[in-house]
């Protein structure tokens, strides 16, 4: 068995407004293992993003506990939109996180720039974000996250703002990057095909308040890229299984 990175035990979370109370998550148990790619799918608005916010420590659970198994576990968060800063060049955007965390050294800088080179953005280093396509921008955002050398990546619907073709290509590329950098990752998405094509395990959430309905092990070899996985005959079986689980 792989070693555990993080465990949620009996986690519930509610949001309060003047109008009332919304329970986003109820009594959720979930474990993330080292080196795995876990996808979370569920109907939109079911509290998937809340799970990532809880893991990231941006919010605290109303009940239950979030347990981290390794001291100093570094988390990297990738948002739905790239949020690149328009007044910074690509390379300055990539260094933003390092700057914020006072970890900007010659070494960390070189590593970040090496990532840009390695994933085909080297020649765009001095460009402004406005000059890049949506897919390239999202890749810059991923490298901004990777520059912080996270052990666990939290991906919050990172492809949903892109057109379909860009989406397929980029998910292939992100998959390759995450695998070759040996990262663990959690992908939140409402797109079943995306989850099946990228993940080792898929956690299916119910409608709000989110509970864990089912954990589906995806048995593809890690060597297959997301696009290749989509062409496998078993792909549709996984898809159908999750589709049925998602039905209310």
């Amino acid at each position, binding site marked *: 068995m792989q070693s555990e990175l993080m465990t949620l035990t009996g986690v519930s979370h509610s949001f309060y407004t003047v109008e009332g109370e919304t329970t986003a998550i109820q009594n959720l148990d979930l474990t993330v293992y080292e080196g795995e790619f876990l996808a979370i799918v569920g109907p939109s608005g079911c509290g998937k993003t809340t799970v990532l916010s809880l893991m*990231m420590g*941006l919010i605290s659970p109303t009940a239950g506990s979030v347990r981290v198994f390794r001291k100093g576990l570094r988390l990297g*968060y990738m*948002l739905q939109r790239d*949020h690149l*800063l*328009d*007044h*910074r060049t690509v390379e300055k955007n990539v260094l*933003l*996180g390092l*700057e*914020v*965390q006072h970890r900007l050294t010659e070494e960390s800088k070189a590593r970040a720039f090496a990532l840009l080179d390695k994933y085909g953005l080297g020649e765009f280093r001095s460009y402004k974000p406005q000059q890049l396509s949506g897919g390239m921008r999202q890749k810059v955002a991923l490298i901004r996250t990777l520059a*912080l050398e996270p052990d666990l990546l939290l991906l919050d619907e990172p492809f949903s703002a892109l057109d379909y073709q860009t989406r397929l290509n980029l998910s292939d590329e992100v998959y390759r990057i995450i695998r070759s950098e040996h990262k663990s990752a959690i992908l939140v998405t409402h797109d079943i095909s995306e989850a099946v094509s990228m993940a080792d395990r898929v956690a299916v959430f119910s409608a709000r308040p989110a509970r864990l309905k089912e954990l589906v092990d995806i048995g593809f070899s890690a060597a297959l890229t997301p696009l290749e996985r989509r062409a496998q005959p078993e792909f549709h079986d996984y898809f159908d299984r999750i589709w049925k689980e998602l039905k209310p």
Partner: protein
Amino acid sequence: MKHTAISEAHAVFLRRVRRDARIVVLSRIAVLLGFLFLWELGADLKWFDPFILSSPSRVIRTIVRLYQDGSLWLHIGTTLLETVLGFLLGTVLGALIAVLLWWLPKLNRILDPYLVVLNALPKIALGPVLIVWIGAGMASIVVMGVLVSLVVTTVTVLNGFLAATDEKQLLMRTLGATKLQTFFMVVLPAGVPDLISALKISVGMSWVGVIVGEYLVSKAGLGYLIVYGGQVFKLDLVMASVTVLCILAALMYYAVAFLEKKVRN
């Protein structure tokens, strides 16, 4: 795709763009010359009384006379100094207040209705009070220029800051940024365009404040000349001062617009 060699159709297009630009510039000059010509002609042919409406030649003669007796530069210098001071102080103070209100959202909520009222209030209504409080001198006029530009700067800049914050705050939180880092790395750079549009608004506002201030209390300046000219029925003097004012205000506006272009690049 960018081609270095220009196709025939592209050349035609470029010629048309240049021709349109020329037509616009020439028409602008024609409008000005036509206006001046009709004004002068009307005065010469007594369509109206040039004593009341003056004429371009009388305006020029008046400006030359002011220049010869040495008072032109005194009046221009006085008004310009007051306006630049009012503009700079108003902008700097206004921007600083915007930073403070961004930093303390609770304070912003508390003061919001007051800011709305101050923004709606015609600041020049405070003129007579300022003279009593500060005294009948240049200080009152400068404070007037400050007041008129301050509130509009605060409101514009604060809105820019808040818009930038909404967008990127989540990102900065996921990176673990402090409030100070968020301000200097995201909010301030994103707020620069708003700061510049505030400059463009407040440069005009400062002129309003200063001229009204001079109407109320002054011994020199273009506003003083206009009031004085009106009182002793020297309409030539009024028109000459307004003309000079037009030129100065335009120059200052274009200076700010030039600065904007510099900053944007």
